[in-house]
């Protein structure tokens, strides 16, 4: 009896996946070899990630990824969530330009942003990352790769690519006629967040320091994230490309919603700790007013509360 119920649940879950991938059936063969990008500003092409968790159907193409074309070369940021995702992004680039791909940025350690990097090894670019990324990759890279292969199938995740150029504070890279300003952040969304500003168009790429619509995932420091978010606001970028959500947003208004989520998490977790609520019960109490504002809330929010609790209970 137990076996039967497990099997029926498995069918139910698979059924849900089929619903998510249904729109994919209408794609033409050509389009499926490359990603659909939007040119959000001159020379900046962004692919919107699906607001889903990683699945065999979506190939972990769930983060916003893209590329910037300069006069002399191309920079990729980010490379995608799987080798397949990265290969499709590379074809999109090659459909547009033959300029060399000189830089592949790795905004942070999470698999949906970096497992496409393997598709660009042939271009011999500089793989650019926060100085803390190698350490995080050493601790988690293989673990993430194994988990991803469980979802995508053996051999489908892609290799772990080590960064070759590290940023510990700020630096610039040149694409010819346009320079990108890179900034390594203090512990926030993760311990290794790298953001980018394209000076020519005033476009900020905060990566996962900015979530829009999709429930943020906290894997660094809640207090640190609030600090870095407010620092990014002081840049006054004309527009921003969040790590998840629409391909182009006004930073200030998008950030205010994230700030509200993080501040609610901070305030209500502190309150729960002060009231003697235990860590197991806190996720049901903390931040429930935010549920209506975010997708995939049940998948991520409880984990965020647990992380916040761990950080704040020692205050």
């Amino acid at each position, binding site marked *: 009896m*137990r076996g039967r119920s497990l099997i029926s*649940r*498995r069918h139910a*879950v698979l059924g849900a996946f089929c619903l998510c991938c249904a729109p994919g059936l209408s794609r033409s063969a050509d389009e499926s070899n490359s990603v659909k990008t939007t040119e959000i500003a001159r020379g900046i092409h962004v692919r919107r990630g699906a607001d889903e968790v990683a699945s065999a159907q979506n190939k972990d193409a769930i983060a916003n990824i893209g590329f910037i074309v300069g006069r002399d070369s191309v920079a990729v940021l980010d490379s995608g969530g799987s080798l397949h995702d990265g290969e499709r992004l590379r074809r999109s680039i090659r459909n547009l330009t033959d300029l060399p791909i000189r830089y592949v940025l790795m905004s942070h350690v999470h698999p949906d942003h970096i497992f496409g990097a393997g598709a660009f090894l042939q271009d011999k670019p500089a793989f650019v990352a926060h100085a803390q990324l190698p350490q995080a*990759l050493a*601790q988690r890279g293989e673990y993430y790769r194994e988990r991803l292969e469980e979802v995508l199938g053996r051999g489908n995740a892609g290799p772990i690519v080590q960064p070759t150029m590290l940023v510990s504070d700020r630096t610039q890279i040149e694409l010819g006629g346009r320079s990108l300003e890179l900034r390594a952040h203090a512990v926030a969304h993760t311990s290794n967040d790298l953001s980018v500003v394209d000076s020519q168009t005033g476009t900020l790429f905060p990566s996962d320091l900015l979530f829009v619509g999709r429930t943020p*995932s906290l894997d660094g420091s809640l207090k640190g994230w609030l600090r870095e978010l407010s620092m990014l606001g002081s840049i006054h970028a004309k527009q921003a490309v969040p790590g998840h959500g629409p391909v182009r947003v006004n930073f200030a208004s998008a950030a205010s919603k994230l700030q509200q989520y993080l501040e609610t998490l901070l305030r209500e977790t502190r309150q729960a700790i002060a009231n003697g609520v235990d860590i197991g019960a806190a*996720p049901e109490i903390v931040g429930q007013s935010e549920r209506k504002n975010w997708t995939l809330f049940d998948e991520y929010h409880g984990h965020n509360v647990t992380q916040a609790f761990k950080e704040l209970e020692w205050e």
Partner: protein
Amino acid sequence: MGMMRRYFLIAACGLGGIVCTHVASADDEADARSERWAELQRAIFPGRTISEGAGVIQLDAPPRALDAALVPFTITLPSDKQIKSVVLVIDNNPGPLAGRFTFGAAADPRSLQVRMRVNSYTNVHAVAEDSAGKLYAVQKFVKASGGCSAPAGSNDEESTRNLGQMKLKLVSEFAPGEPVQAQLMIRHPNFNGMQMDQLTRLYTPAHFIRTIDITYDDQPVLRIESDISLSTDPVIAFGFKPSTQGKLRVEVTDSKEQSFVREFAVPAAAVSSTL
């Protein structure tokens, strides 16, 4: 364990878009679990009879863990049976005997909470022993995975730096002579030796808490014998019976033979006390 176990892995883990869920499709999964528990009973309680524990001991755990490296378990002893110790067994963990909790004269054993690592979908058993030496067990199924081999979190560095730091909080109203609930927090990375550094291909050496002895004015409250399943920075909620003024003393020893001792004046210093 010749039984075939087939796992159907659906979607993966918490961060960066991977959410861990796996469903065992084999019919013999339930059989394998009870066989595993029978094996563990023989190993941990050789020659002993274990009775059904409903009404004697209650075990609460989230059915699906939000963080497999930190799964809260609450043990409640609702009856007035004299329970002298509780053993927590996480059947499918690499070290299944997760903890042995022995109550002393100054204890209020009615409620105990601990945080554990859970490595895979597993039954968890809490086994109470009463003063007559009879054993009672209850069981919970917990869905969590990767808690033991999960790589270091961002807190681990801090835990190592502040090794042995402790905090004690009273989480219920203090009244002299009446039982009070306390929460003890200990900074310790509790490396279990299963986290691999992929760069060096070396495992972070095991370094974990072996025992925690809590006394109140020299009267034993609680002794915890733990193993590699205890979470990083363990937090333990327990009850004891204070008098008007007294001292709660905590002594922690770990697998490197290090020992950490802290004393908290109760109620005065209990709210927040550090090194």
